[in-house]
Structures are given as C-alpha cells and as structure tokens.
C-alpha cells in the first residue's frame, strides 16, 4: 500500500494550477498508488455475472480489455443516451463556464485538473462528440472531440473512481448538470469491459447472495445484536431483546449493515434499540433484508434496484405497516429518489407511515411508506414524548456533518439539527459554505472508503476536515455527528489524520445518551456511562 504523506506535506503539495499540456493529450494518466482502488476479483465478477472477469491491476500496461472494447463502449453509450435524458442533456449543454471547477473536494485536495467536475464530464463528453456526433467527427479537437482508445478507458477508470457522486458541483451549475449522473454512466460503461473495483462489487455480491454488504449470515447478525444488547444492559441496566423476522410487526426497521458491524456505528445501533424499546414499539429487524445501504447505487441502476427490491419484498412477507430507515446517506438517496420508481409500488399491506406514539401522519412518505428515523425522532421530541437530559452529552461539543446524499438528494437539513439541539447543550454548525446543500463529502463516498485509496480519501476529505478544524479551534468541538454509515466508517480515519481530537458519532448515539429511561428517573440506577461505556462526566470521575 502507498505511503501516506503527512498532513502538512499534503497541504504543501496542493497546486490548483493545471499543467501546460493539453488535457486531451495527457493520456493515459499516471496511475498513482493511493489514488485508485483495487480491481474487482475474478471470482466476484463471475459470481454476479459481470463481463470480462480476470486478474489485472491498474498498474499493468495491458488491462486485458476485450478486443472489441470500442464497439462495446460505443454501443453502451448509445443505449444509455437513449434511456437517460440526464445523460444526453448533460453531454450537450455544458458551456464550460467553470463555476464547478473549484467545488469538487477531490480537486480542492489534489489539484488534479481532471478532478474538476467540468473536465470529469468532458472525459466522456469528448468521446460522445468524437464517436457519435457529426460536429465532433468533422471538427475534432476544436469541438472538444476525440476518439476512444485504450488510454481513454484507463483515464475513465482512474477518474470515475475518484468521484464520490456527492453532487456538490450540481448545486452550483447554472444548468444543474450533475456529475454524479456522468460518473454513474462512466462506471456503467466500464463494467461492460470488466473495469471496476472490488470494494464496491464484493459488497454487491454479498448483498445479492447473503443479504448485506459485509456478508454476515443471519445467525451471526442475531449474535452481534445480542452482544450489543449486553452492552446496552451494561450501560442502562435494561435487558432488551431485538425482534427478528417477526411477522405481523407494525414496523420494519432497515439500517446499513455498517451500523451493527463496526465502531462507532454500533453505538448508533444501540441508540435505535434503546429508543424503540423505550417507546415499546412493535418493530422488527430482518436478517433477510439486512442491508439498508446499497452499493448497487455505485454500480448500476439495475444492481441498485436488485438490492433495494428485497426491502419491499420483506415488508410484504412480514405484513408490516410501514418502514423506518436508519441513518445512512446513499441509502436515503435510493429510498427517497429511486425506491418507488425502481422497485415500487409499495406492497399493499403498507400504509402511510403514522407514528404510533404521536399520531403524526407522515404525508410526505405516503407513496414509499418509508420514513427516516430522524424524522420519526424529531417528531417525538416535538411532541414531548421523550424525556431527555442533554447534560449527559456535556462532555461533547458537537458539530454536524451534512451527508451529501440526504442533503442534495433529499433536502434533509433541519430534522437532525432539531434532534441535536435537544439532546446536547453544545452544538455549533461549521461555516455556512461547508454545510447543508454546500456540504463537503467525507472524501470516501460512493464506495471509495477503502484503505488502498487512503491518500485520495485524505485529500478529498480535506475541505470537510478543514471546516471541522475551524469549529474545533473556535468552539472546542470534539464530536462530529453525522447520519451516514459510510461517514461513520470514513470520518474517524479522516479526523485521525486532520483533527485527531475530534470523534465521530451518529445522531441516535447522542439521543440514547440523553434519553432518561423510566427506571433512571426514579433514581433506581442513575446513568453513569455513555454508549461507549465511558463515563458520562469524566471530570467528576477524576475529582472523586
């Protein structure tokens, strides 16, 4: 694995001035270790029936492409141009005004000009023009057109896996050109040649066959959750049993497998469990639809639908009334913008979500019948249904990282903030140009949160981390809350690199810390530990 430069060295290496050489001639790109992810393994591609399974490395001279790769790609482009208006339109209308150029976190952190969104799209656009339009064929380079070569494929692979599909550029584009759409198409085309990455496709395989990204079989899921319940007992004294695959439950709860697999996601998971138990909800998890996340979204529209379809299928089998989804970014892009169209309509047994506690009817989810757990909780707080002691989170000075997908694919800004303001006393937002719809990616989104990509993750995460440093220095922030499982997996590494004093948590971890349970109110067993089994008030411990 590539050596990671020190933070100050990394900053010094950032230069936004592009080279003199024309970008079209600058192929193939110099493939640098630390800036690409390992290719999908041969057996993984075979198992999911993807083309051209083979052993190869992006560092090889010969990528073992099919001999007719040009025809494959050009046919693949034509096909997609006729299916997705976004693709065709975004190929046609860019004026290269450059408003997007310095909006991409990977560009800001690397200075590599092909990470400017406009140029990332131009990598594909130039081939579209050169191979499929008469203007491009006639005027070539003058019209920004070029021919498809093996070097171009290498360039595509390098740069379409240096885009986290965060859509920040799309906010600033005067025509709403969305690089995410371009990258999705770029990746779909690359799949046709077997150029893809293992960190995405192995989870996809696991999801198809076993039920979740990590490939945890059903009995192990139950075991893991039971372990978490022991931890909950340790912290709260409560013995809780989580219902699995329970037919006739009112609510199916779906969350990314990251939440029950690794720290700090597990603390958020404990938070959901404590909350649902406090409310005495009639809920169930499923060990079949055990993945809320969807690495299929980073693969192809078809793979995304195939993974998501299980959720409705399971909701139908169990006969639940509605679905609550956990804290996750790209998962919520799928649930909000794709689920209904791609895998709906929702099964007939589902009803418009209605909180059994407050009676609130979630009209805005009346078609998908699925709500975000933060919507559910914010509603509880607004109705005074939770007894909260925010001082239990006093050792934390909290800021909130808006995850890309809920922000720009959903407009999900106030719900988590509302919760945070009620469960902790110290909450400070980062500077306004780095949050909400202008939020920066964690640097590891869209399936790029792998170790071999670490340098690019630290570069891409630099703008986010830099804003965290700002509130750390100004307000003493030491906790970065987020509502995304990839964030919870990726931000600890990012913070460790750029702002080591800052920890990462999910919103519902803080909810569970602050939630005053009935037996705690009576003084029977006051809470002394947080979800991490660390003392709630460290200074008192020391004084004692």
């Amino acid at each position: 694995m590539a050596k990671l430069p020190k933070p100050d060295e990394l900053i010094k290496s950032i230069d936004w001035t592009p080279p003199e050489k024309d970008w079209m001639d600058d192929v193939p790109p110099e493939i640098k270790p630390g800036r690409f992810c390992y290719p999908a393994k041969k057996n993984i591609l075979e198992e999911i029936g993807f083309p051209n399974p083979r052993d190869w490395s992006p560092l090889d001279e010969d990528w073992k492409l099919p001999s007719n790769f040009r025809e494959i790609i050009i046919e693949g482009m034509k096909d997609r141009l006729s299916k997705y208006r976004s693709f065709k339109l975004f190929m046609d209308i860019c004026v290269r005004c450059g408003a997007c150029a310095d909006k991409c976190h990977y560009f800001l952190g690397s200075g590599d000009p092909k990470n400017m969104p406009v140029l990332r799209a131009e990598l594909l656009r130039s081939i579209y023009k050169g191979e499929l339009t008469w203007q491009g064929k006639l005027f070539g380079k003058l019209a920004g057109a070029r021919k498809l070569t093996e070097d171009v494929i290498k360039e595509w692979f390098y740069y379409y896996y240096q885009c986290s599909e965060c859509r920040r550029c799309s906010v600033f584009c005067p025509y709403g050109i969305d690089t995410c759409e371009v990258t999705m198409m770029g990746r779909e085309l690359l799949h046709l040649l077997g150029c893809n990455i293992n960190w995405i496709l192995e989870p996809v395989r696991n999801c198809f066959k076993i039920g979740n990204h990590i490939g945890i079989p059903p009995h192990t899921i139950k075991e893991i959750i039971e372990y978490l319940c022991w931890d909950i007992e340790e912290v709260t004294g409560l013995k809780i049993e989580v219902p699995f695959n329970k037919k006739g439950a009112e609510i199916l709860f779906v969350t990314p497998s990251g939440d029950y697999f690794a720290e700090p996601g597990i603390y958020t998971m404990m938070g959901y469990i404590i909350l649902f138990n406090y409310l005495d909800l009639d809920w169930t998890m499923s060990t079949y639809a055990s993945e809320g996340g969807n690495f299929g979204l980073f693969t192809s529209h078809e793979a995304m639908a195939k993974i998501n379809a299980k959720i409705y299928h399971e909701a139908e089998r169990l006969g639940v009334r509605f679905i609550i989804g956990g804290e996750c970014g790209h998962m919520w892009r799928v649930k909000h913008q794709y689920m209904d169209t791609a895998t709906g309509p929702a099964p007939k047994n589902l009803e418009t979500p209605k909180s059994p506690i407050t009676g609130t009817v979630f009209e805005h989810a009346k078609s998908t019948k699925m709500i975000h757990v933060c919507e559910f909780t914010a509603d509880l707080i607004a109705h005074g249904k939770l007894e909260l002691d925010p001082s239990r989170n006093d050792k934390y000075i909290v800021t909130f990282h808006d995850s890309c997908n809920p922000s720009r694919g959903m407009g999900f800004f106030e719900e988590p903030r509302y919760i945070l303001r009620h469960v902790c006393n110290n909450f400070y937002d980062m500077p306004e140009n780095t949050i909400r719809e202008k939020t920066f990616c964690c640097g590891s989104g869209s399936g790029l949160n792998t170790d071999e990509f670490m340098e690019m993750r630290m570069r891409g995460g630099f703008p986010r981390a830099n804003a965290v440093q700002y509130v750390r220095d100004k307000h003493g922030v030491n906790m970065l809350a987020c509502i995304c499982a990839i964030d919870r997996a990726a931000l600890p590494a990012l913070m460790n690199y750029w702002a080591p004093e800052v920890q990462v948590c999910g919103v519902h971890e803080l909810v569970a810390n602050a939630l005053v349970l009935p037996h705690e109110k009576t003084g029977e067993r006051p809470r002394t530990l947080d979800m991490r089994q660390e003392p709630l008030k460290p200074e008192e411990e020391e004084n004692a």
Partner: protein
Amino acid sequence: MGAVFALVTVLAFVMVVYLGVGVAGLKGLFGIVVPYAAFLVFLLGMVYRMIDWAKIPVPFRIVTTCGQQKSLRWIKRSRLESPYNNFEVVLRMILEVFAFRSLFRNLKAELKGPNLIYGSYKWLWLGAIAFHYAFFTILLRHLRFFTYPVPEPIQILDQVDSFFHIGLPHLYMTDVVILAALTFLFLRRLADPKLRYISLASDYLPLFMIYGLVISGILMRHFFKVDVTQVKEFTMGLVHFKPKAPDVGVIFYIHLFFISALMAYFPFSKLVHMVGVFFSPTRNLANNSRAVRHEPAPWWKKPKFKTYCEWQEDFKEQLIESGQPIDEDCYKKK
C-alpha cells in the same frame, strides 16, 4: 490555441463577406439567401434538438435539492430550493432562467496557508447576467426594423436604452454593457489558468462571433452611418417575403452575416443551453418522490432478486439453530 482559431475564423467571416459583397457584388446571396437559410436552420435545428431530448425518458427523480424538504409540519421548508409541487418547480425554474440562481451561489475557494477559505464570488454571475440581458434587450430593440408601425414598448425601450443622449445617433447603454461583459467573459477564460485549461475553440468561437456582431453593429451606427431607411425597407421585405438586397455599405452585410452565422451555429453547439436548461432533470422536477409515485421509464424492467424463500433455503440450518422463525408459507405456496 482555441482562441486563435476562433479569432481567425471570425476574421475569415469578415473577409468572405468583404470579397463576396464588396468585390464580387453578391448582395443577393449574402443579403437574402444566407439570412433565410440561417433562420431556417436555426428554427428546424432548435425544434429537432428539443424533440430529441424530449423523446428520451427521465427514468428517475434526480432533483438536486438546495433547501429543506417538506417533512414535518413545524419544519420550515424551502419552496424555491426544494419544490414540492409543479407550481413551486415553475418558481424555481423562473429564478434559474431569469436570475441565474445557481450561478448566484458561486464561491471562490482559496487556500491560505493550511486553511481553505470560500469567498463569495459573484463576478461570473454579474458578467453572465449583464451579457444575457444586454443581448436580449438588443434583440428586442431590433424589432423596430421588423415592424411597421413600431410598437410603443419597442420605441420606449429604444429611448430608455439611449437615455443619456451621448453622441449622435445616441449611444445605446446595452452596446456598452455587452462589450464590457463579452470582454470580461473572454478575459476570464484567458486569465484563470483553470479556465484556460478547460476552454475549447468552441468556447471562444461564439464569444468572437458575438463580438463581431456587436462591433459591426456599432460601426454601422456610429461610424459608417449606414442608411437606416434602406435597411428598414430591406428588413420589412424579409418579413413580407419580398426581400430586396439594400444598396448599403459592406459593413451592413458583415453584421448580417454574423447574425446569420450565429443562428446557424446555435442548434449544433453549446449555445443550445438556452433551451436545454428547461429540460434539466435536477432542476425541473418536484422533490416529492416519496409522496407521489413516478412511473418507471418504458424500458425499465423490475429487478430479479433472491426471494425470501430462496434465501431461507440457503440459510435454513442457521436460522433454526439461532432460533429465528422459519416461514412455513414458503412451502405452502409450492
């Protein structure tokens, strides 16, 4: 390189007209055939482009939300940045098309020591607004050549535009604005290394064609003082399909050629952004995809996936061992 090519092309246009009209006297060709043909190409081309886009499905609701969604009643939502219904979408599009809303958000990132700073950067917005509105006003003003009698609003527009009464004939403010805006839009492409890197010949060419158009117009009005009566007779002739090429200076034919070239170039270049923006699925859809079901595209196939019952067969032993229920319905159905 791109800029040089564009400049040479535009100069070549001037030469062609000079040789064609000034030397060879092909007034009919340049005064009648070329403008009609260009206008036809423009109309048919734009219609073709629009139909071409409209035919392609929008399979998913990929709205870019730039404000709070509609969820809980007590959370204030943003109607303009996250429209929930079609009326709000129209408002969002109006802001986008007439006020360049997204461009107005523009920021400029700067790396100062170890800190990334994002300053407001409205110059591009201002340049773009100035250019587009000046161009639009100039086009409207030109309606005085194509109408008789000239409608009052056009006359008023003309008077307002030349309000300062500088020189004779009076200088139009929009002429000054468009020249300044064009110069800004051109210089920023050269001055910013990032923009120079991404700019193509096809980015400079429309700028230079419009430069040519504007400069030839100004020269004609203020320096060569072309006979306006003859010009009006000619333009009214175009309108009534009884055109007669006017006996005026070559500068007029150069002006006419630039607008013709621009019209013909329009549908086949990036200039189609003018209509393309209306089709943009990240802007022209409502953010209500959880409340309203949107039918999939005709080509979309429902996915095939491993059903619960198939999965249960694979993991039956583990399910039983760990005390998870076995769904007997899986067997009943068979």
